[in-house]
């Protein structure tokens, strides 16, 4: 992840770079970021965080988080990514009813008369959710008092501009300018 920080306060620049890296690693999103541009102007105050993701967040299907096999009329699922276990169970309960979904162990599930193709194609997390998680982490990095926020989300590039009082058109224009520049530099 390449991070560029611009701002007049040298201590703040370095501190926010570390804070950003730390928080993104904590929420497990650092790996999905290609480029980050941070503009810090505490005097105004205006903070602009622009991220370019490595790839466009795509929807997660059940087949991405489990290994599936069919034995006669039974479909067996072995969960490989436990983060999605609650979503998988809830989707299966919705499709087949609680009585027909047998969770044998923490990772193993058996379904009587199940359709492995339909199960595999079921969406458990949309790409939008992944984007929202990244935006949530960016909000954690921003100073707490900087409450007036404006988001720009386009394909792989996400920008959040934040100020303390009114988000004027002038500040939004600055945010757009930074957003387009970072997007252009990254050839998105």
């Amino acid at each position, binding site marked *: 992840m390449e991070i560029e920080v611009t701002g007049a*306060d040298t*201590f703040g620049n370095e501190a926010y770079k*570390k804070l950003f890296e730390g928080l993104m690693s904590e929420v497990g999103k650092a790996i999905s970021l290609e480029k980050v541009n941070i503009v810090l102007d*505490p005097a105004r105050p205006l903070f602009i965080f622009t991220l370019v993701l490595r790839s466009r967040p795509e929807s997660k299907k059940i087949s991405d988080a489990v290994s599936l096999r069919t034995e006669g009329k039974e479909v067996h699922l072995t969960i490989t990514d436990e983060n999605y276990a609650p979503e998988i169970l809830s989707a299966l309960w919705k499709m087949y009813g609680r009585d027909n979904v047998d969770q044998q162990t923490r990772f193993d599930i058996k379904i009587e008369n199940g359709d492995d193709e339909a199960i595999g194609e079921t969406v458990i997390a949309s790409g939008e959710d992944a984007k929202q998680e990244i935006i949530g982490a960016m909000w954690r990095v921003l*100073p*707490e008092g900087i409450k007036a926020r404006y988001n720009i989300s386009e394909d792989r590039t996400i920008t959040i501009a934040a100020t303390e*009082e009114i988000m004027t058109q002038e500040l939004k224009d600055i945010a757009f300018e930074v957003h387009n520049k970072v997007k252009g530099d990254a050839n998105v």
Partner: protein
Amino acid sequence: MYDGGIYRSNELLEMIEDVGGVVLQKTRSAQMFTVTMSIPGEDKEAMEKMCTAIGGMVRSVPLAGTEIAVVGPTLGRHHMPHPICDIAEVLRQSGAITVVMGLARGRGKATSQISMQEMDIINEYDAAVFVLGNFKSCVEAKKHLFEKIKVPVILVSGPMPDGMEDSCEAVVSGVGRKSERMRTPDERKKLEEISERVEDVLRTRKRTIEEDPLFVHPAEIKQLLEEYEPIKESLRPAPMVLHLDGLRLKVPMKENAGEISEMVVYGRKLGDIARISESRIDDSSMIIRIMTMSEVKDRDGNA
């Protein structure tokens, strides 16, 4: 401070009494036992021997007998738990009792505020450590949060702010907002620096108190109150906390103030030589501020 097991700890407590010392704080957690004590200097060596003999460790705790508030702009996840809790922890290691406090509206450069009640609560402690953020202009703009606080204030911030000379007693820079524990050698050193600055500030405060000494040392009032039934029965972890100029008692003011103010110390009623008031935190604790010798004399003269 003795830090060890509960085994033979009664011998330690007897020895503290024999040498004319005082137990400032006693904490037991399962088989672990810590005792913060104040003893005469000439008995230190004998006390160390005794502590080693019963399998514990003894170390000097310069902040013993003080209660310090560590204050952040809010209790939100932006400021908590790091570095506020790291600072509170290092002060506890030096013997202080600490509380962590977040202001209701302390965040924001232009919108930060502190209420009168929050100031009153902070003024109940011996000192306050204010922990602010990463931008110089923001730290300087938040000076108003602590400039009216009456107890000594130590400011901990990221960059070194300008113009703080009249607003706080000491400034430690190089900390700021953090997303993880302060555990690198440089960060541990910074925490030690904060602890040393707090010690310096409180040493000055002790000297100021010595210029016009208190009528009675807070530890003597503590000894007197140890036999007071509601305090003996209190289940709160530290029902009595020593301050430099008094004590915090964690028993309700309404039910206990009358009896406590009638207690006799050196032939005087406690109510006559100390100001007893309810804590601004809630009605379940009270603050005793002992008057100085000159205040008591002045009061006697006016009577």
